[in-house]
């Protein structure tokens, strides 16, 4: 009878014989015995208190082939992600903690850019997550700059972090697009240092920022692109104010200067005039007026008497302070007033970016202490939807933020929000680019219709799709108490890194954060009236 273990047995028999022979030999010599005493046997120390292994029995062994035994797969349960960054919550399957934030993960080399995108339906804790991220990231010295807050969600947190809140909207703070911005406050310091090169750079930067701001606003109100000649007129007009060294101009000043047909502007407009026989220069007023007509209309719209009231037409009340968190609260702007929303969104985004540029620049010039910033663009779709023309500008802002090595958190409800001009439209592609370029994506509950879009970008597996769509279900109502159960997807997110499998987690936040600014606070009074009890908000 030949068995598969014959070979082993052949080996075993001499081994035992040899071992016995060796043991017998060693027993004879007292020296060997003394040395052996300091060495445990194969079964451990013998004698009382030696803990020698006693009864030995092989565990029951069952036989199968390697292609079947692998079904006893030991790796069916996974470990959580590494503890890097802000603690966010618990893994939905294993209960282990989950940590992540774009800057820490970027620094650790886990993602290629410090940007993240949050996708998810309303009311499932998107803002909560972002607020938690920025609040906790502040511990790492990362300063959050919230570009626009439409709810307002971030105001309380930013205040609690000792930051600055600038409210924009009818009858609230004023922002002058021609304001030189936070950089201007530091020019004196640069001049004092005698660093002329830096001063020149600084001035050039301020000039282009102001020009971009006013040009962008004009594009929005005119619903057309600003041509080269009009841009030149604006630039020249701003230069004229700077040369005259008067106070910071407002839109009204600019409008009046252009309407006054200043000779310096006439050259730019292309109205060089005709010298008549008497040697007198005659300008063609009609030609000038025709060419600046759009500009004048646009500026008049933005000015105090226009549709925006005094939002843009008055001097800036409060400049962005560098080195502290801030938020532009635009919650009082009517959502349906697309043009106003677009203008305000655009202005806040560009002002915030300017603040970031200024901070980076001043850090390089060693005027400001180095810090990291994270820009927050919540409700991205509002900025984009407001006017497609903004898309390119938003795109350039986002590229700028990336170039400046700042963190960026963008947020929108669905990918469909980003379908701006049809599935294959050029603007849609730009908008999708924002998401596609984010290595880190948090997905909350999403509708089934979204899955096609998500599939395209992230290769979602079936399980992930099931999770993410399941989370968009509404909470059930207890028929007895009429209490609404927490929606299934409340605070649940899938942390997706590129195309690798996502990490589903349920977010956990501290009580301190719960107390600060409840997202649904505006409904609390109504809820109390209807149901007469407080609902425990996540």
């Amino acid at each position, binding site marked *: 009878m030949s*068995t*598969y*273990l014959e*070979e*082993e047995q052949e*080996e075993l028999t001499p081994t035992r014989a*040899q*071992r016995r022979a060796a043991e017998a030999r060693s027993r004879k010599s007292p020296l060997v015995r003394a040395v052996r005493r*300091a060495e445990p046997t*194969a079964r*451990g*120390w013998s*004698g*009382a*208190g*030696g*803990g020698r292994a*006693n*009864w030995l*029995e*092989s*565990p*029951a062994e*069952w*036989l*199968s*082939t390697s*292609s*079947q*035994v*692998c*079904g*006893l*797969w*030991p*790796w*069916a*349960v*996974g*470990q959580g992600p590494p*503890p*890097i*960054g802000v*603690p966010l919550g618990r*893994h939905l399957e294993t209960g*282990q*903690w989950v*940590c992540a934030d774009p800057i820490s993960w970027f620094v650790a080399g886990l993602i290629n850019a410090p940007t993240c995108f949050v996708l998810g339906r309303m009311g499932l804790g998107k803002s909560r997550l972002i607020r*938690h991220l920025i609040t*906790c990231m*502040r511990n*790492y010295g990362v300063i959050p700059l919230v570009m626009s807050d439409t709810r307002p969600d971030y105001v309380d947190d930013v205040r609690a*972090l000792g930051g600055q809140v600038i409210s924009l909207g009818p009858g609230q703070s004023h922002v002058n697009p021609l304001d030189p911005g936070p950089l201007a406050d530091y020019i004196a310091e640069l001049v004092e240092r005698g660093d002329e090169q830096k001063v020149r750079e600084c001035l050039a930067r301020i000039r282009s920022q102001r020009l971009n701001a006013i040009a962008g606003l004009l594009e929005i109100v005119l619903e057309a692109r600003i041509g080269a000649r009009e841009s030149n007129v604006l630039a020249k007009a701003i230069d004229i104010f700077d040369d005259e060294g008067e106070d910071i101009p407002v839109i009204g000043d600019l409008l009046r200067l252009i309407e006054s047909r200043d000779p310096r502007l006439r050259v730019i407009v292309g109205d060089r005039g005709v010298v008549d026989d008497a040697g007198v220069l005659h300008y063609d007023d009609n030609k000038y007026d025709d060419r600046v007509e759009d500009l004048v209309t646009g500026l008049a719209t933005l000015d105090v008497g226009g549709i925006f009231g005094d939002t843009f037409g008055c001097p800036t009340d409060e400049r962005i302070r560098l080195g502290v968190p801030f938020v532009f609260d635009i919650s009082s702007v009517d959502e349906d007033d697309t043009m106003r929303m677009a203008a305000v969104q655009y202005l806040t985004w560009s002002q915030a970016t300017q603040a970031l540029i200024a901070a980076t620049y001043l850090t390089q010039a060693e005027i400001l202490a180095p810090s990291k910033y994270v820009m927050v663009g919540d409700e991205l779709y509002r900025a984009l939807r407001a006017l497609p023309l903004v898309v390119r500008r938003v795109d350039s802002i986002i590229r700028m933020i990336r170039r400046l090595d700042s963190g960026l958190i963008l947020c929108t409800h669905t990918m469909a929000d980003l379908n701006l001009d049809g599935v294959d439209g050029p603007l849609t592609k730009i908008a999708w680019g924002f998401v596609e370029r984010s290595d880190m994506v948090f997905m909350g509950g999403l509708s089934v219709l979204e899955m096609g879009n998500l599939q395209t970008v992230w290769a979602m*597996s*079936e399980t992930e799709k099931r999770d993410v769509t399941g989370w968009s279900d509404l909470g059930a109502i207890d028929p007895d108490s009429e209490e609404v159960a927490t929606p299934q997807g409340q605070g649940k997110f*899938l942390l997706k890194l590129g195309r690798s499998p996502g990490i*589903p987690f349920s977010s956990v*936040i*501290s009580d*301190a954060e719960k107390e600060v600014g409840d997202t649904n606070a505006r409904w609390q009074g109504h809820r109390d009236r209807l149901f007469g009890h407080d609902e425990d908000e996540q």
Partner: protein
Amino acid sequence: MSVEGLTAEPLRRKYGNFRRPGFRLFRISLLPATAVFVTVVIAVFALMLEQWWVCLLAVVLLAVVELPLLWPSPGGARYVRLGRWGSHRLAQRAGRNVLLQGPVGKTPDGLLRLPGLAAQTQLSEHTTSLGDPFGLISWPKTAGNLHTVVMHAHPTGTTGRDQSTVDGMVAQHGALLRLLGEQLDVVGAAAVVQTSPDSGLRLRRGAMRGVVDDAPEFARAAMEGTLAKLTSGSPALQAAFTITFKGTKPGTNTAISTEEIARDLGARLPFILGQARLTGAGATARWATAQQIVDHTAAAYNATAAADIEAAVLDGSGTGLTWTDVGPGHAVAEYEDYVHDGALSRTWVWVRPPQSAETEDILAGLLQPHHRIPHKRVSIQYRPLTPEASQAGASQGVRETNFGGSVGRFGAAKARDVQFAKKAEQEESEGAVLVRASVMITVTAFSREELEDAAQAVRQVVRRSHLSVRVARGMSDTAFLATLPLGLVIPQFLPVPDRVRDQL
């Protein structure tokens, strides 16, 4: 669910096909059956020769001694159970089940070695040909001069993965076992998945890294508040895969020096690691260094000091422990439980795998953290046979099951066994190797009540995983050692070779 939904559900790949090696006659193994048979023959002959007393004696022996002792049962035949109990009582009376070591202990060298079978082990560190360090545990007094390497795995689990990907990983796990069989000198491999309550130290250290001094109070409160909620009640999972190699010259019993073995392994380990990383053990799986092995083992025996050990490892100062510091100072191997340095452990060993074919996540319930079983270690032990041994084993399997099937009624169970053996033979001819598998579970607790509660939960979890288990009685110390990621292969310590044991 709609009908389409039901029919669209793809068929999951299933695994199973487990067969108990050895001949079986009416569920009795060959050797007990032979004993019974011989007694019956003697009785019949005595009857024919009219030797009434001999006949009576044989019948009494058969009815009173042999059948009750040899009759199989899930916990082992009665003679095995008697053996466990008897040997334990003897050891207990002599005080041999107690381990008292260290400076004031009863062992000669005053060190804190690992107990029992592992007292002989030595630990060294070497580097692979790619420059990665790996710790090597030597078992110099075993037959075959065994050496173990430990891989620390970082499994990502099935979360968010498509079934096809999971199937791929499981197939790679099979390929790894096959690769180990083809190494010719691998005597055993084990995957150990350990779950324990997370100390929160890693989380706190990770989250508080790089915190600036001038952070606003609110930010600090938010962070602290979140950490406080997350550091309590979170489970931690550690996973390891050990491979134990024979350290003798091929075909002989001449031991090879550890340096030579390390050199040889250094060249082979990178390839094995590459394969192991595809099995779902994580792309960052790597060989454990000697110090890591020391720290993990010390934390297992001295469970109350686990948090201190973790803290020392995390803050970079290191534990400063060596291989002769990791054992328990005081340990008692009770009949069922193992008492070691203030903690209590009990180990279960499987008796039977799932009866039918199961999907790859059958063990998930057992592996994943369980709130009633805070400290749990599951060891899945594989002993892959070499391709030659597999070939012989596969055809012997067909012979054994055919033999069993030829006696008595050919029922469904026997038909299944025959079918399994034939399938195994076919898979073997397609390149698979035979693997002897077993599963052991160790639970550690800090009081009897806690242990009983956990034991209750283990019974439920095991049932969900379709396993039958028994408590490893009479060898609680060795069983505890066997589920540690140290590569202990118990059959290597047994004087009876596998092929004899299979027939018991």
